[in-house]
């Protein structure tokens, strides 16, 4: 270094000091950020372990019931066969629940592995929703809940309405919405399903007259593993994956979901799904098109 005048030296020192303060500030900001991330991580870990204990209940309990019930059936005397019917009904409802939970868990795993893609076909929407309603029929009847189905699509007399979409995903979304609606309904009430179509969109709404969700909670119910009543005494079963799955599946199909709910009055969940195009822009269905020309850049 060359000789510095006193003035230059002072300036240099001042500059360096200033720079230092800047870095100190930056470090402070960064460590604050780190704190936030750590808290989030802890939260996430807690939720995860909660989820695991939850899920083992979800799987183990139905199995125990099914095993117990089938054992009782085996032990029934021939002339007592009428008892069997009610036990079979119980087995069915446990197995139904188990099937529902497992499907959700596997789909969540698939989504997280990045393996969920749209699988588009012409879907008979009325048919598919009717089937879903029927599958939940037993559960609904047990709770004295009537499921009302309004299919508000005028579509030629005696013709079926077809919509290009992914039927398996619609089924999962529907089953989650229905399951929630029934789960949070009071006994002897009603669940209303309304289906409409406009232009290129299919809209399905599921309305219940149950507990409802406060405005504050409406923001967090889509978070994974989140359940509003996750206490040990919670009357409702579930793992809190349903709505995160619904949202992720809608993402894949380009759809959206909205809640309209008031605490104590019930909730309406509405999904809107755009009709899928046959062709992903720029790609033909078979993928045999000449996609690239000679002027492509090659990396």
């Amino acid at each position: 270094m060359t000789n510095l005048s006193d003035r230059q030296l002072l300036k240099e020192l001042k500059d360096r000091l200033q720079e230092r303060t800047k870095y100190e500030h930056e470090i402070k900001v960064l460590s604050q950020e780190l704190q936030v991330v750590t808290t989030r991580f802890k939260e996430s870990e807690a939720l995860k372990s909660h989820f695991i204990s939850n899920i083992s209940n979800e799987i183990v309990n139905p199995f125990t019931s099914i095993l117990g019930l089938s054992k009782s059936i085996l032990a029934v005397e021939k002339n007592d066969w009428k008892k069997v019917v009610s036990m079979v009904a119980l087995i069915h409802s446990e197995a139904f629940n188990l099937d529902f939970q497992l499907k959700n868990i596997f789909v969540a795993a698939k989504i997280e592995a990045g393996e969920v893609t749209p699988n588009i076909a012409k879907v008979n929407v009325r048919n598919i929703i009717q089937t879903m309603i029927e599958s939940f029929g037993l559960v609904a009847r047990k709770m004295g809940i009537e499921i009302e189905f309004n299919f508000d699509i005028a579509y030629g007399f005696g013709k079926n309405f077809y919509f290009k979409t992914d039927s398996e995903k619609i089924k999962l979304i529907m089953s989650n919405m229905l399951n929630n609606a029934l789960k949070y309904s009071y006994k002897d009430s009603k669940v209303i399903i309304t289906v409409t179509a406009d232009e290129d969109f299919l809209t399905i709404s599921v309305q219940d007259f149950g507990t409802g969700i406060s405005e504050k909670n409406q923001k967090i119910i889509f978070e994974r593993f989140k359940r509003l009543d996750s206490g040990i005494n919670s009357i409702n079963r579930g793992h809190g994956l349903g709505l995160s799955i619904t949202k992720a599946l809608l993402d894949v199909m380009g759809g959206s979901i909205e809640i309209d709910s008031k605490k104590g009055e019930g909730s309406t969940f509405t999904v809107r799904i755009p009709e899928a195009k046959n062709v992903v822009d720029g790609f033909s269905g078979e993928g045999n098109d000449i996609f690239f020309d000679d002027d492509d850049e090659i990396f």
Partner: protein
Amino acid sequence: MNQYLQHFLYPSTLFASREPYMVKTILGSCVAICLWDPVNKIGGINHYMLPNWNGNDLASPKYGNIAIEKLIERMVQLGSKRDNIQAKIFGGGDLIAVDRSAMLIGERNIRVARIILEEKKIPVIASSTGGRKGRKILFFTDTGEVRHKFIDKREY
């Protein structure tokens, strides 16, 4: 080109294979990272839409930090050594020119790619990122070659 199996890569998904595949995808502000292992001829690609996982949704490869981590994991599962893997980055254009406050998702998507790849010591040997246009890319998993073309398209 006909001996190649084909795969169309949707957003938020991953693909990796030991077999020779031709993977196509379309990118707007999304970013796709092509990883290639020249020793074992294994190629993998992701397609993420947002830079970082918010901790709330399912931890899916919709988010850059998760998509990169999972793709590397997948490559390792298929038999790659981390040290052999090289990367190419594509996409991250900012197509929504109308609203400049669109939070520059493309740019943030690119940044997360560079940061994580550097952290993992995976060399980025080629890239075409940013700009105002969308991109179509074709990735050949056996040679690691990427064919690339700009498109005038809306958001993907």
